[in-house]
């Protein structure tokens, strides 16, 4: 299409007869009409997104730069500096980061292991898939009772520990609490990630693996040299997804331990909730802007890493 019009342009203008000019004008009009149609279809969503996300986020950025909702006093980075001196924010950010740093890699690696396990020809494969996926449909609020029975100071896990000759551990009120929450996080999210990896594994060209088999490649070599290479876009996606879900672990923590949990479980969402109670817009806005920037940077880094790792695999 493009080449066609370029060629025409080189020719002298007088050779354009009326018919062609008409056709060209019609094409331009058609293009404009298409643009209008596309906007028509897009507009409900675009209006809503603009109204509920883009415009107010602009205001949030503005609020983060002034010193009070009523005033127009620009203080630039003061709110951010205050935020970085706020001990509650620092604790919440630290806890959230350390939780994500532990939980996300585990969620990626273990889900991949589950997918590889199901790839071996074992009986009841599709039943296992259903079982592994089932926690994702269970609302957190529904299983919280069982978690309490298991991890309470007088709970079942401690009974087991006692029976094995250990001492009681206060799972939710000591440094172990982070691992308890990681366990709940994995329980809920592994199934979803596993499905993604199974789909990724199914997309690896069979011939490649067959050739590797004929050449006598070991399972480990096949995994690292072929499968992992082709899985790299999936790894990227699962990592991003797990990262987002790791911010949702507040649900488990809140439903298990309430507004003020053990220090190690005080998450960013707790900080936001408590700041909402005092309606400190400057603090809230600065925190939201900082988080948005951190997320964009993290995701950009992950994309770059994937580009580098999967560069010689097409598709």
């Amino acid at each position, binding site marked *: 299409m493009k080449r066609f019009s370029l060629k025409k342009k080189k020719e002298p203008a007088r050779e354009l007869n009326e018919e062609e000019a008409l056709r060209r004008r019609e094409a331009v009009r058609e293009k404009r009409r298409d643009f209008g149609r596309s906007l028509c279809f897009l507009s409900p969503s675009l209006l809503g997104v603009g109204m509920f996300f883009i415009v107010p986020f602009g205001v949030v950025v503005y609020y983060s730069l002034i010193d009070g909702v009523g005033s127009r006093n620009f203080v630039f980075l003061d709110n951010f500096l205050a935020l970085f001196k706020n001990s509650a924010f620092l604790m919440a950010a630290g806890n959230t980061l350390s939780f994500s740093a532990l939980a996300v890699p585990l969620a990626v690696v273990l889900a991949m292991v589950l997918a590889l396990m199901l790839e071996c020809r074992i009986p009841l494969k599709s039943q296992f898939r259903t079982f592994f996926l089932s926690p994702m449909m269970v609302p957190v609020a529904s299983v919280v009772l069982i978690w309490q029975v298991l991890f309470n100071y007088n709970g079942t896990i401690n009974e087991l520990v006692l029976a094995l000759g250990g001492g009681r551990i206060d799972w939710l009120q000591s440094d172990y609490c982070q691992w308890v929450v990681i366990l709940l996080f994995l329980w809920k999210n592994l199934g979803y990630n596993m499905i993604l990896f199974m789909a990724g594994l199914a997309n690896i060209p069979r011939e490649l693996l067959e050739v590797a088999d004929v050449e006598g490649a070991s399972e480990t070599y096949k995994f690292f040299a072929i499968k992992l290479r082709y899985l790299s876009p999936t790894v990227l996606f699962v990592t991003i997804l797990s990262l987002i879900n790791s911010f949702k672990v507040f649900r488990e923590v809140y439903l298990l331990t309430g507004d003020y949990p053990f220090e190690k479980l005080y998450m960013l969402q707790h900080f936001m909730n408590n700041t*909402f109670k005092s309606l400190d817009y400057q603090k809230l806005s600065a925190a939201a802007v900082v988080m948005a920037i951190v997320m964009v940077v993290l995701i950009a880094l992950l994309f770059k890493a994937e580009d580098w790792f999967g560069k010689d695999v097409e598709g």
Partner: protein
Amino acid sequence: MKKKHYFGRGAMFLLCAFFAVAFLLPTVLTITNSFMSEAEINSNYGMIFSTTSGGYVSETVNLKLIPDKVTFSQYVTGLIKSPEYLLKFWNSILLVLPIVIGQVAIASVAAYSFTRWRGKLRSGIFFFYVILMLMPYQVTLVPNYLVSDWLGILNTRWSIILPGMFAPFSVFLLTKFMRRIPYSLIEAAKVDGAGEWDIFTKICLPQCRSALYSITILVFIDYWNMVEQPLILLQDAESQPLSVFLSSINSGEIGLAFAMATVYMIPPLLLFLHGEEYLVEGIANSGSVKG
């Protein structure tokens, strides 16, 4: 050689079975425990919910899979005698159904636009949607709160429903599905003189019926489980959905809480059992943020 292979697969099977039990047990325990009588529940778990954490009691907890005597008394109490739980269940429905219907409807139109027409501006918008989709609640809740405040819908259902309807997740997923529809199909319809709306409703939507179903399930499960939004946007305890309210059980009503936890599981469980194949297909197709 062959023997070793069998051994490996046997071990793999056992490992899978072990994981399967671990994945299923919490759900199964919740369901079976909901059929216990209040007395049995109290004698089994009373010490856990009556003392604050850290206190030691000499009674031992007694986690049981099968109740001594199966009874529906908890369900009778929760569903018929005290309307409180049922009211919260109704709150959940009133919040989630409009979001699911609205989000899927708005998203399918938008996804059609992203599929049908390309251009620099529109691919820029699509990229922006992806970024927005990846933002956690901690970022989006502050803007949502501001708008709700301006519109005067704070503390009403609409403060959750409206932003939920425009969440970009479904747009992203549906666009990926629709881009798989052969272009020749649309082209042929156009040559036959079909308008865009006809192409959308008569060709595009029927083609991605399974995708629409799987997205409905995904969105439903996500919002049925919501905790963050109601905590901030609904101050009123009366209008809280059951997903938040369940955690505020009294120590005397554990049995009832088990029963209501099970009731709350039923809608997503039914959707899951009915549409698992679609769900898996939907998840599998969300597999990459690129392209």
